[in-house]
């Protein structure tokens, strides 16, 4: 195996002490693996038999499914010393997502989405929230209240390792946090006398209602409001990819409004390309540019539509990194900046900079300079071995409220300073 070859090569370079440390670690890992294996078997024996097969499939998948991640992990272990010097000091409080790590008692449905989150196969605040809630619905359906406790008491403790696992695979989005908080509230206010099956049915119904009211239907209302703001001859600029903005633009096209779209995208994720594909397929006339051209592209833009990851209580928008720059440049040129955001993404938290809460992606992504699916390593290849060189791959940034003209929510078009008002009303 090429992997082993690599490690033996490294072995030669190591000192005796280091070699011993590696051996010991490997032994410990092996032991942990066997212990983990037996306990999962034990754990699954207790629950339904169909689950046994599933977990084994997925534990197997964890290794084959995330080759890049496991490789990355190994690298991290190998170069733990080096790694710490590769951490950007300003962001040392933010953890780079460790990737999904399996523990016991994780429901297969949650396992699947955890892996998909870690791999960014499911990304976007809405998609992640819906996936989480749907998975939790399955968890609740498969749940049996143990003897001597009640559902409203025990279910939250059953859910918390699932949540922890999801957070481990990728930090939770604000919307997901709100949804889960909502779910926990519903569980805790459940009638104790309710039969297990009825309670579970009721909870699933509540989850469905949440998805319907706060996400699916909210999006439809936002699209309706947004349509009022798109007129014939408009040139609309959007950044990266937001599911609501995409739905709005497609609907506007379906309504026969003649407008053009400029999709601004940024490396390393190139999420805008997927939006571009959808818009082009719908027959919308599109222009595509990287973020560097935003000043140039904004010249004949009439409106900027942006998506949101979350809205802070101080009116700041927390969204895909680069959004702040697009909003700032638009404001500089006096172009209205319209943000589409469901109210479930509003949070009571306040934030003033992009440092305290943020997420770091895999810095390795920045090395790839290809714009297609086939990766092409750029100049920074091998950066881990170059002293004094660090890469920072931030995922979000914070747009100050002064750059946002209006926020379209399912409760209407509001100034972004009204976020705390909405939060208060909904309480």
């Amino acid at each position, binding site marked *: 195996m090429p992997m082993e070859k690599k490690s033996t090569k490294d072995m030669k370079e190591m000192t005796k002490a280091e070699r011993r440390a590696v051996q010991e670690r490997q032994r410990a890992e092996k032991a942990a693996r066997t212990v983990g294996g037996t306990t999962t078997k034990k754990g699954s024996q207790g629950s339904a038999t169909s689950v046994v097969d599933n977990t084994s499939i997925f534990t197997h998948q964890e290794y084959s499914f995330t080759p890049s991640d496991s490789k990355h992990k190994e690298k991290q272990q190998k170069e733990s010393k080096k790694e710490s010097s590769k951490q950007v000091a300003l962001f040392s409080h933010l953890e780079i997502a460790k990737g999904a790590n399996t523990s016991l008692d994780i429901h297969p449905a949650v396992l699947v989405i955890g892996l998909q989150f870690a791999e960014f196969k499911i990304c976007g605040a809405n998609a992640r929230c819906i996936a989480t809630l749907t998975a939790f619905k399955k968890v609740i359906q498969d749940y049996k209240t143990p003897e001597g406790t009640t559902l409203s008491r025990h279910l939250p403790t059953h859910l918390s390792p699932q949540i922890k696992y999801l957070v481990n695979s990728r930090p939770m989005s604000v919307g997901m946090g709100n949804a889960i908080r909502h779910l926990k509230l519903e569980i805790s206010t459940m009638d104790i006398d309710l039969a297990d099956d009825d309670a579970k049915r009721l909870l699933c119904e509540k989850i469905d209602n949440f998805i319907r009211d706060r996400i699916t239907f909210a999006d439809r209302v936002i699209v309706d409001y947004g349509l009022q703001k798109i007129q014939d001859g408009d040139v609309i600029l959007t950044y990266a990819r937001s599911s609501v903005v995409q739905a709005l633009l497609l609907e506007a096209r379906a309504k026969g409004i003649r407008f053009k779209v400029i999709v601004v995208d940024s490396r390393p994720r190139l999420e805008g390309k997927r939006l571009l594909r959808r818009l082009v397929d719908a027959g919308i006339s599109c222009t595509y540019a990287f973020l560097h051209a935003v000043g140039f592209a904004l010249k004949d833009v009439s409106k900027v539509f942006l998506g949101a990851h979350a809205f802070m209580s101080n009116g700041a928008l927390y969204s895909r990194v680069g959004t702040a*720059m697009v909003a700032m440049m638009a404001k500089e040129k006096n172009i209205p900046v319209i943000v589409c955001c469901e109210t479930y993404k509003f949070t009571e938290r306040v934030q003033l900079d992009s440092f305290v809460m943020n997420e770091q992606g895999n810095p390795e992504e920045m090395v790839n300079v290809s714009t297609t699916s086939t990766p092409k390593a750029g100049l920074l290849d091998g950066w881990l071995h170059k002293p004094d060189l660090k*890469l920072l791959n931030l995922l979000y940034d914070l747009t100050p409220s002064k750059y946002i003209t209006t926020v379209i929510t399912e409760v209407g078009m509001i100034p972004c300073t009204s976020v705390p008002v909405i939060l208060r009303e909904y309480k």
Partner: protein
Amino acid sequence: MAQPRGVCIAALKVKFEEFNGFTLYLLELAVGNIVRRVLRLIRDVYNSEVSIKSVPQKGRIYELQSYGGSNSITEMINELENMYVNIADQAMEHIHSNEFIMTVGKSRTVEMFLKAAAKKRKFSVVVAETSPTYLGHEMALSLSQAGIDTTVISDSAIFAVMSRVNKVIMGTHAVLANGGLISVSGTQMVATAAKHHSTPVVVCTGLYKLSPLYPYDEDSFNDMVAPDSVMRFDEGDLIDKVTLINPYYDYVSPELVNLFITNTGGHPPSYLYRLINENYDPEDTDI
């Protein structure tokens, strides 16, 4: 893109009869500037000495040599050749210890400037990768090799990181008469983000990049280059249906720049008109 400075030096070294061969390079603002400076030199020599003696015939400007013009041209060549060192010498006046400096694109001037400072001071540099040319990657590699603590960020993270940056130090392709910059695409974002955070923007540039031309339209000096680096041509049907834009330069208005560090010292953008009067003759603005 050819190194404008190299072309300028080459232009000055050739015999004047061959000068016509360089008309091609007049598109490059810096080369035009050098031509204007030589023209200015000729005018000065003509006005001071030649007017007393005999007027040289048109087309025989190489006779200039006999009137002491040759020395001045040697001076100009020296100026260009020592430019990086002259600018880098000022580094200690601008960079203090533990600074957090942002730069964008790749500029030899900035590179030398930062490396000179790194010999005595310890500071960190954040390099915006400047896609799709990835000049930032080259810059970061070069700086890290010189032992400077370097962090590469994607262009999208410029705004997020800016709040902690002390100073933006960048190079430019050309400086226009109003103090505006023609610089690598993406610079406008950096400068605007810096303005939002009240971070000083320092531009390191040789005086030869100072052009007497005025940007009546922001895009008059811009270049659109092949969009290959934004979306590859082998991406199938999608490329036929979309318009791709990939400007090579950005215009940065003078309000966004705080200081120019040139080979003759530091100047604010509002002072540049003086330098233009000093170096060029108004008659030569259109060449």
